[in-house]
């Protein structure tokens, strides 16, 4: 018998596949925008697996392709070499079923049709649902000039621009100098935009968005796409990489609402090592150092957008490691040490409340803390500080089948307000998932996705006394994640 074909076709034979399909087909979901372009695959005739460890997560070659400005560097990258009808556009959406269970929700109690008080109970809901829709378009405008535009909608088709950027690649003929401007994802080696999980809490990296309880600094979220300019460089084989970005402290919100007068820097550097049969290992670090306004001029007590002054500083820094143990198993690690100025810890910062891009915020702007002249911090206020770690192992059975695990924990090391329980806001979360791509071509992509996430946070439940009420939330999700 032809054993090699058996090896190649393992996923298409035997009883394993039907069992797996049955398991997976009932699962899956997608709720976050992510970058993955069959448009690139169609342009170059490569399968998803060439650039993705498992779609949408990039592998090393895909990272190099991205770092080269979405170019293979084969002198056939410019649009002039494409069929004139080629347009690099891809959409992605995910219908799914999920079960969400949230513990300790404060609910009203009734008697005789009237509210008599409140109680705490778990709320569980199940049903079919839909993710937002992403339209990805990206590629080259000319050799060594690339672009990416991503209009992204929520599930009600309300669009915003998740990414809009243009990039000059290989300036002066060297890969060490590339410059892009616009709104873009920060250079997180473990990309949240290419995350392999899709639940509400598991579909993001908590570490990338952590804000201490009571803190109002939304500007240090390294997982959000940001507005600014980035200088990036890498060696020809991408073993060595660096980025330095200058960002508006706006958390990616347009209109100079919050970030009119403040900027943030984001820096990364990493080095990869050839370790033979183990694969290519990469270690690196990142740092975000910035400042943001805490005082907004007011009219009738309401902060005036774009008038922010009284900048206070913050920083995040950490280690990133991508460790491969042969062709099937890898572990991604990210750590973070975070620090916010005490003013942020006391709720100052986002006084104009663009609500981090999330529509429907209800907090009246006039009630948000504003560092107006003469304002002083409560006695004993300290800079909130925390540490976190994220560990994400993958077992890649084949490019078509990947199993995902994740453990994240974030621990406060210093609270802003004296007397605050030291563990308030601590987060621990586990995620398990599986993605199976029933086909793998250079034309389109689909993953049957199943996932379970459990998240625990200390003290964020409704309080009813001196004892912290912790919240446990879990979600089970099965979906069809597809793009074309």
């Amino acid at each position, binding site marked *: 018998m032809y054993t090699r074909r058996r090896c190649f076709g393992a996923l298409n034979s035997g009883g394993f596949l039907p069992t797996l399909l049955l398991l997976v087909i009932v699962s899956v979901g997608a709720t976050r925008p992510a970058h993955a372009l069959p448009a690139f695959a169609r342009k170059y005739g490569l399968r998803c697996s060439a650039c993705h460890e498992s779609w949408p997560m990039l592998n090393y070659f895909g990272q190099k392709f991205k770092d080269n400005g979405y170019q293979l560097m084969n002198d056939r990258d410019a649009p002039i070499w494409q069929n004139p009808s080629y347009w690099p556009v891809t959409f992605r959406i995910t219908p799914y079923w999920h079960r969400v269970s949230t513990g300790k929700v404060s609910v009203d109690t009734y008697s005789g049709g009237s509210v008599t008080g409140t109680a705490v109970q778990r709320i569980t809901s199940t049903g079919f649902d839909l993710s937002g829709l992403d339209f990805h378009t990206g590629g080259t405008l000319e050799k060594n000039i690339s672009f990416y535009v991503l209009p992204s909608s929520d599930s009600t088709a309300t669009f915003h621009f998740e990414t809009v950027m243009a990039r000059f690649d290989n300036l002066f003929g060297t890969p060490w100098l590339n410059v892009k401007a616009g709104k873009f994802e920060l250079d997180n080696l473990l990309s949240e935009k290419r995350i392999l999980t899709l639940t509400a809490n598991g579909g993001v990296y908590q570490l990338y968005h952590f804000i201490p309880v009571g803190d109002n600094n939304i500007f240090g979220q390294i997982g959000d796409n940001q507005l600014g300019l980035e200088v990036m460089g890498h060696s020809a084989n991408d073993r060595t990489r660096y980025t330095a970005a200058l960002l508006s402290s706006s958390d990616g919100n347009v209109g100079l609402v919050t970030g009119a007068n403040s900027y943030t820097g984001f820096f990364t550097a990493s080095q990869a090592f050839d370790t*033979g049969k183990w694969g290519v290992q990469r270690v690196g670090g990142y740092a975000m150092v910035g400042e943001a306004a805490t005082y907004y001029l007011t009219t009738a007590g309401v902060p005036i957008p774009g008038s922010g002054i009284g900048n206070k500083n913050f920083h995040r820094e950490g280690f990133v490691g991508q460790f491969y143990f042969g062709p099937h198993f890898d572990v991604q690690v990210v750590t973070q040490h975070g620090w916010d100025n005490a003013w942020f810890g006391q709720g100052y910062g986002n006084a104009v409340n663009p609500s981090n891009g999330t529509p429907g915020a209800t907090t009246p702007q006039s009630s948000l803390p504003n560092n107006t002249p003469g304002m002083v911090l409560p006695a004993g206020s300290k800079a909130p500080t925390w540490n976190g770690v994220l560990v994400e192992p993958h077992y890649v059975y084949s490019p078509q089948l990947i199993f995902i695990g994740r453990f994240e924990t974030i621990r406060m090391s210093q609270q802003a307000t004296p007397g605050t329980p030291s563990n308030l806001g601590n987060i621990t979360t586990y995620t398990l998932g599986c993605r199976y791509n029933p086909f793998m071509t250079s034309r389109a992509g689909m993953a049957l996705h199943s996932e379970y996430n459990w998240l625990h946070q200390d003290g964020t439940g409704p309080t009813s006394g001196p004892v912290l009420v912790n919240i446990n939330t879990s979600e089970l999700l099965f979906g069809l994640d597809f793009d074309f």
Partner: protein
Amino acid sequence: MRTKFLPSSLLISIVAVLLSPASLAQVTEYQQEQWLNSPAATSHIGNLTGRAKVAGNPVSGDYRRYCLVCHGELGDGNGESAPWLDPKPRDFTLAIFKCRSTPTGTLPTDEDLFDTIARGLDRSNMPPWNTFTRQERADLVAWIKHFSPRWQTEKPGTPIQIPPEPEVTPERVKAGEDVFNRVQCWKCHGVEGKANGPSASTLQDDLGRPILAYNFAEGGRFKCGTTDADLYRIFMTGLDGTPMPSFADNLKPDEAWDLVFYLRTLQPFPSKAKEIAKQLGLKPVNPNATGP
């Protein structure tokens, strides 16, 4: 001009295939399964050994993930994307490779294939796969070698000797122009190196598919390297499977270096040769003056 010959072993294989009652694909598949277990399905790059099979299991993961879509499961260049690609993916079953350090008509060394994978082939769909570990590349070389019967019966050629690069001088640049005329490079590459010679539009590869001559004036990378030594090697070994012949029988080493220096003057990059050509007022040759 390059003299081409078909190895007798290959002829025998072809005849055997044609006479076989089974289909070509079936025979090839069966044979490849056998060749996977042969000593030829290994590679040796320095102190590195690549294997197509480890502990009884084919090392097919990287080929399947990255290469199969173009080169096909059987390595015959008939991957699912092949119909849309130009130039077409390499047919590994023929074991004919452009980039070699070995004489025309011979098999390349393992290092040649190893380097080609990392370098890619400019102006084709083959990107530089320099993200692999060296071990992964060595394994891929071994994997590629199990596709063709030639590796079972032939040894790679002996790499050509490239003498040390001499100092570029006005005399050498001028002599290089004479070589360019004499061996009629301009017929395909054009008098100014713009790939517009009188034969350019008629060029075909060995499988009868149209192929373009290299355009020196565009300044793209050569397919098989970027250095002067690479350029020397390219025209002394020829690009097998294409109309670009080996000039090993036509040029002495000194003449070959002269030609290298002259060819550099046709490229848009600053170089000492180009500077000398400017000082000499070197003009493109007139093909009518030199004759076809």
